C-alpha cells in the first residue's frame, strides 16, 4: 500500500464509474428482471398468496431488492473480466501505483451502480403501490443492510471476474443468486413449504435479510433476524474477500 492509495483508487474509480454512466443499459438490464418479477408476482400470482394484512407489493419488495443486487453484481464480474482480458489490468499492475486500487475501484463502482439500480426498483414499487411509514433511521438501516449485502456479493463477483475464462463464465455465477430469493421467505411464507425445502428456506441468508428489511419497512421490531442477517452478510463478505485475494495474488503472481 503506497502513500497514494486513496488518490490512485479515486482516479481508477472515476474511470470505472464512467463505464457505468456511459452504458446506462447495464443499469436498465439490472433492473429489468426484478421489475418483471415484481409485476408478475403482484399482478398475476400475488392474489393467490396469503400474506395476511400486508399488501403483496410491501411483502415482496425486500426479496426483489436482493434479487436486484444479485443481478447487478454480474456486471461487476463482467467489467473486471473485461479489464483482465483487454490487458488494461496488466498495464495498471505494471505502473508505480497502489496496485490493489484497481480492485477497490471496481468494488466502489459496484456499490454505486447497485445503489442506483435499487433506487430505481424502489421507485417502480412505489408506483405499484408500495408504502411504508418507516422513519429516517429505519430507512438508513435498510440502506445499510443492502449496502453490506452488496459489498459481500461484490467481493464474491471479484472471484469469477479475475479467474473466469469466458464472459459467460464471468456472469453465470450470478444466476443461482438471483433465484435464491424464490426458496426463501421473500415471495411466499416459508410455513407453506414441504419439510426439507422449508428447512433450507429458513436457514439460508436471504430469509433473515428479507425478514429484517420487511420488519423495518413495517415499523415492527426486527428481533433476532437482524443479527442473523448481519452475521450472514459479514460471513459471506469475509469468505468472499479471502478467496478474491487468493485469485488476485494468483493473477499478479
Amino acid at each position, binding site marked *: 500500500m*503506497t502513500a*497514494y492509495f486513496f*488518490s*490512485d483508487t479515486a*482516479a*481508477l474509480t*472515476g*474511470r470505472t464509474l*464512467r*463505464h457505468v454512466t*456511459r*452504458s446506462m443499459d447495464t443499469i436498465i438490464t439490472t433492473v429489468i428482471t426484478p421489475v418483471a418479477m415484481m409485476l408478475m408476482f403482484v399482478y398475476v400470482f400475488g392474489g393467490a398468496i396469503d400474506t395476511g394484512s400486508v399488501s403483496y407489493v410491501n411483502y415482496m419488495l425486500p426479496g426483489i431488492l436482493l434479487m436486484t443486487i444479485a443481478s447487478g453484481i454480474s456486471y461487476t464480474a463482467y467489467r473486471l473480466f473485461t479489464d483482465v482480458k*483487454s*490487458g*488494461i489490468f*496488466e*498495464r*495498471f*499492475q*505494471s*505502473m*508505480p*501505483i497502489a496496485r490493489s486500487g484497481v480492485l477497490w475501484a471496481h468494488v466502489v463502482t459496484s456499490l454505486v451502480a447497485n445503489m442506483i439500480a435499487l433506487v430505481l426498483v424502489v421507485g417502480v414499487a412505489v408506483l405499484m403501490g408500495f408504502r411504508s411509514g418507516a422513519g429516517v433511521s429505519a430507512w438508513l438501516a435498510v440502506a445499510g443492510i443492502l449496502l453490506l449485502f452488496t459489498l459481500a456479493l461484490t467481493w464474491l463477483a471479484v472471484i469469477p471476474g479475475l479467474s473466469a475464462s469466458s464472459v459467460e463464465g464471468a456472469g453465470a455465477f450470478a444466476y443461482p443468486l438471483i433465484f435464491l430469493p424464490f426458496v426463501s421467505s421473500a415471495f411466499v411464507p416459508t410455513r407453506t413449504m414441504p419439510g426439507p425445502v422449508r428447512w433450507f428456506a429458513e436457514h439460508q441468508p436471504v430469509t433473515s435479510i428479507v425478514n429484517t428489511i420487511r420488519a423495518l419497512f413495517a415499523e415492527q421490531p426486527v428481533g433476532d433476524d437482524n443479527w442473523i442477517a448481519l452475521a450472514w452478510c459479514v460471513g459471506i463478505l469475509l469468505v468472499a474477500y479471502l478467496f478474491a485475494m487468493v485469485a488476485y495474488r494468483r493473477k*499478479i*503472481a
Partner: protein
Amino acid sequence: MTAQTIADPVMRVQGLEKSYGKLRVLLGVDFDVAPGSIFALLGSNGAGKTTTVRILSTLLKADAGTARVNGFDVAAQPARVRQSISLTGQFAAVDEILTGRENLALVAGLRHLKDPGATADDLLRRFSLSEAGSRRVSTYSGGMRRRLDIAMSLIGNAPVIFLDEPTAGLDPEARIEVWDAVKKLAHDGTTVLLTTQYLDEAEQLADRIAILHQGRIIVNGNLAELKQLFPPAKVEYVEKQPTLEEIFLAVIGGGDRSNAIGTTTGVHE
C-alpha cells in the same frame, strides 16, 4: 555470440527460467541491454517473448535466474522496477469507453503529474490525435489506438519502455506510424525493449537483435553481425519486383514513405 555482457547495462537478464506446469517456456535466457538503445527480442509465436516481458515488468515471477532493470532486481525490488518502466501490451491496453484524452489524463493522474490535462493535450498533439482526442477510443482505427497506447506509456518519462509486439495486426501504414514513434523515443534517450515476430521490424528499428528460440537466446548481435552468420553473399542480377506492400502504399499515396520499408530480395550485394 550469445550471452554477451556489456558494461553498465540498463537491463541485465541472466539464466531466466519459467515453466507453466509441464510446459517449459524459458530455459535460461541471458541478455544485456545498453542504455538508450532499441533491443529487439525476435521469435515466433510461443517462443517466450511475452513471458520474458511479463517477468521484466514484474507481472510474473521467474522460476530461476535474475533480472535487473534500471539497477533494480525484479523479484526483490518490484516497486522500484515499476517506477523505472512503462509497458505497452500485446493487445493495445487502452480504455475503449474513455476518450483518448481521458485515457492519457488517467495515466498522467496515476503518475501524479501536476497537470494531467495539459500532459494529455501535449501528447495528443505529438501523436497527431488532437482532433480525435475527444472521441471514444472504440471509434479509433488500429493505428490510432496503438499510437495512443504508446503515448500513454510515455507519460512519466520512464527510462525503460517495453513494447510487446507493437505492430501486431496493424496495416502497413499504421505500422510505419508506430515505427516512427518508436524511433523518436529512442532518439530522446529512452531504452526500448521490443518484441516482434517480424524480421523487417527488427531490421528497421533495432540496434541489437536477439533471437529467442525454444526457450533460449540463440543469436544476439547487431544487424551486420547477424548477416555474417549466413553464407557469404554472392552477386546475382535479379529484377526487383515491387512488393505488394510498396504497391499498396504507392496506390494510396503513402509513396514518400515506401523507402522506409526494408526491401528484401534475398540477395546481399
